[in-house]
C-alpha cells in the first residue's frame, strides 16, 4: 500500500518537474517590459510618451525554422530598437505541420495577451480572416507581410515584398545579362504547377519576353521540381539532355535554383549551362563565385521585416490611419505610400521593392 503511494508521489513529482521546466520561460513575459522600460524611453521620448506603456508587438512567420523568416525578425528587431518601443517584440510562429491552426491560435492568444500590433506572413488563406477580424475588434493592429490575407478582411495593410510584374522583368534582364547581347535559349525550372506566386512570376516573364528588346531570348520549356531538392536536381539534368542548345536555366524558387546549380556543378556543365533566378545568398554563394550561377535576385527579408515593423508601429500609435494615399517615413528605407493593392480585389498595400541582384561582387557580404 505504501509502495503505491510512493509511485503516485513520484509521478506527481515528474509532472511538477515538467511544469517547472516551463517556468523560466514564463516568468520573463510580464516582467520584461517593465525591466527595460526606462532606458530606450530616454532615447526616444516622443514615441514612448505617445503610447504610454509602449506597443507590445508580435511578428508571426508562416512557420518556424525558415532562414528568411529569421532574417525578417532581425529587420523587425532593428526597427524595434530604432523606434525605442519599450514594450516587447515577440517572434512567434507555429510548427510547419500545424501551420494553419497554429497561426490562428497565436493570433487568438495575442488578443488575450493584450498585444497591440501583429505582423502576419499568412499561410492560412482566408481561414485566418475571422480571427483577424476578432483581433481588430479587440483594438489590435493587423498588418500582413510576405503573404497577405486574400480577401483582405481583418487586415489593414499588406507590406508586399516586390511587384509581381517586376519579377518578370528582373528575370528577363538577368537572362540577357548572362546570355549576352546575342541572346540564346533558356528553360524555366519552377516549384509546383499550382504555386500561385511562381505562376504569376512566370506569366510576367513571358509577358516581358514579348517586348522586342528581349526578342533574341527564347523560352524552350517550363518544368516543375515541386520545391523538392532531388526532383529539381533531376529535372535540371533532364532539361540538359532534352535541349542540347540550352544555355540557361531560370528558377524562380530558392529550392530550384540551388538544386539546378548543384546539378550543373556536379556534372561539370557550368561552362555550357548557367543557372539564374530567385535564390538565397547564403545558399548560392559558392555557385556564384565558381561561375555556375553568375547572377540571381531576391528581395531582402531583413528590409521586409524592418518595413513591416514601421508600418505596424505607426498604425498602432495612430501616426498612420491605414487609408489609401497616406505617405510615411520608414527610417533608413525612406518614404513609402499606402496604395490600393492591384493584385487583389480589395485591400491596401505598401510596396517595398526593389529586387537586389546578386553577383560575385556582393554575394559574399549578403550570405553572412
Amino acid at each position, binding site marked *: *500500500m505504501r*509502495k*503505491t*503511494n510512493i*509511485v*503516485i508521489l513520484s*509521478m*506527481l513529482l*515528474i*509532472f*511538477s518537474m*515538467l*511544469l517547472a*521546466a*516551463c*517556468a523560466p*520561460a*514564463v*516568468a520573463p*513575459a*510580464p516582467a520584461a517590459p517593465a525591466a527595460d522600460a526606462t532606458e530606450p524611453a530616454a532615447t526616444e521620448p516622443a514615441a514612448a510618451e505617445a503610447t504610454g506603456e509602449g506597443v507590445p508587438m508580435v511578428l508571426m512567420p508562416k*512557420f*518556424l525554422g525558415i532562414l528568411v523568416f529569421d532574417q525578417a525578425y532581425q529587420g523587425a528587431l532593428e526597427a524595434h530598437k530604432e523606434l525605442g518601443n519599450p514594450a516587447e517584440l*515577440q517572434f*512567434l*510562429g*507555429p*510548427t510547419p*505541420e*500545424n501551420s*494553419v*491552426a*497554429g497561426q*490562428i*491560435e*497565436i493570433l*487568438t*492568444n495575442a*488578443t*488575450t*495577451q*493584450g498585444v497591440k500590433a501583429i505582423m502576419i506572413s499568412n499561410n*492560412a*488563406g*482566408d*481561414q*485566418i*480572416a*475571422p480571427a483577424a477580424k*476578432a483581433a481588430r475588434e479587440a483594438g489590435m493592429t493587423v498588418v500582413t507581410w510576405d503573404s497577405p490575407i*486574400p*480577401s483582405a478582411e481583418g487586415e489593414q495593410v499588406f507590406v508586399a515584398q516586390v511587384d509581381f510584374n517586376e519579377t518578370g522583368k528582373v528575370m528577363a534582364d538577368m537572362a540577357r545579362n548572362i546570355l549576352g547581347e546575342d541572346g540564346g535559349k533558356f528553360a524555366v525550372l519552377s516549384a509546383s504547377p*499550382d504555386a*500561385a506566386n511562381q505562376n504569376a512570376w512566370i506569366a510576367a516573364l513571358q509577358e516581358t519576353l514579348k517586348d522586342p528588346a528581349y526578342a533574341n531570348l527564347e523560352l524552350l520549356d517550363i518544368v516543375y521540381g515541386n520545391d523538392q531538392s532531388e526532383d529539381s536536381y533531376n529535372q535540371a539534368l533532364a532539361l540538359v539532355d532534352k535541349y542540347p542548345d540550352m544555355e540557361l536555366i531560370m528558377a524562380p524558387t530558392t529550392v530550384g535554383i540551388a538544386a539546378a546549380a548543384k546539378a550543373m556543378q556536379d556534372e561539370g556543365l557550368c561552362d555550357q549551362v548557367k543557372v539564374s533566378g530567385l535564390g538565397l545568398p547564403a545558399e548560392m554563394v559558392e555557385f556564384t563565385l565558381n561561375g555556375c550561377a553568375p547572377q540571381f535576385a531576391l528581395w531582402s527579408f531583413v528590409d521586409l521585416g524592418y518595413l513591416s515593423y514601421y508600418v505596424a508601429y505607426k498604425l498602432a500609435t495612430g501616426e498612420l490611419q491605414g487609408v489609401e494615399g497616406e505617405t510615411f517615413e520608414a527610417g533608413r528605407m525612406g518614404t513609402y505610400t499606402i496604395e490600393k493593392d492591384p493584385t487583389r480585389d480589395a485591400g491596401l498595400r505598401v510596396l517595398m521593392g526593389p529586387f537586389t541582384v546578386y553577383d560575385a561582387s556582393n554575394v559574399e557580404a549578403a550570405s553572412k
Partner: protein
Amino acid sequence: MPPRWSFLRRWEGLLLILLIVIVAYNALNTPGYLTVNNWVNLFQLSIEKIIVALIMTFIIINAEIDLSVASVMGLSACLTGFLYAGGAPMAGALAAGLLAGIIAGLFNSFWISAVGLPSLVVTLSGLIMYRGLAYVLLEDRSIGNFPAWFNQLGQQPLLGPFPLAMLIFFVLLLFAIIILHYSGFGRYIYVIGNSKDVARYAGVRVQRTKMLLFVASSTIAALAGLLYAARLGAVRGDMATGFELDIITMVLLGGVSIFGGSGSLWGVLLSVLIILNLRNGMGLANLSGHVQTGVIGVLLILSVLAPNLFASFRASWSRRRARSQESNNA
C-alpha cells in the same frame, strides 16, 4: 487511504491533480488566463478535435482505431464549399457534407465489420482516400464568402458566451457518458474491447456494434468538419490535416488502453482539459510551438509508461514480500 480518496490512486485521480496544478499555475502566472473570453477561446481553438475525441473514445475502448476522422472532416467541409460555390443553397450543401460523412462511415464499417479487415488498415486507406477526394474537389482553391448566418454560427456566441460548437460538445459529452457508462450498449463496447470472441459467444452482436460505431465516428467527424468551416469562414483541401493524431493523443492520455477494454470518458474529459489548459498556458507564455508539441509528447509517453510502472512496482513488491515470508518461515 480512506475509501473516499481511493479514486486518487486511479489514473483519473492523477489527471485531476495534474489539471488542478496546471490551472493554478496558469492562474497565478498568466494575466488574462482567468477571463471568460480566454476560456471560450481555449475551447473554441480545439473544439472540433474534442468533439471527435468523444466518439474516438468509444472506438478505442472497442479495441479498434479510426485514423480517417480528420480526412472526413476535410472532405465534408470541402464538399460543402464546393457545392456552395457551384450555386447550391447553403443548407443543401451542409446536408450533403454530413451525408458524405455517413457514406464514408458506411464504407469504413463495411470493410471492418462485414469483411473483417483490421480497422488500422481500412481507416489508413480512408485517411488517404478522403483527403485525396477533398483535394480533387478544391485543388488549390480556397472557398469562402459563406452566408453570414453560417459564419455567425461558427464565430459568434449563441447562448450566453458559448458558441454553437461548444454547446454541441457539452450535449454530446452528456449523451456519450450516459451511453458508455450507464447503458447496456456501453457494456457491450467494453466486452467486445476485452475479447471479441468472448463477446460473440456471449451473444453480443459484435458486427452490428462495430458498424454503428464507425458510422457514428465518420458522421460526427463530418459534423466537426462543418463546424470547423464555420469557425474559419473558408475551406481548403488541407483542412484539419493531422488532427487524427491530436485526437488519439487526447483519448490515450485519458487512460483509455490502446488495446481496448478499459478507460472512461471521465478520464478523456480530464485529459482534454489538461491538454487545452496546458496549450493555452504555454501559448500565453509565448512558448514556441515546438516546445508545446514536446511537452504534450512527454505527457503521452508518461501516460503509456505510468500504468506499466504501477504494475511492475506492484509485482516486484509482492514478490519481495513473498520471499521475505518464505525466509521468515525458514
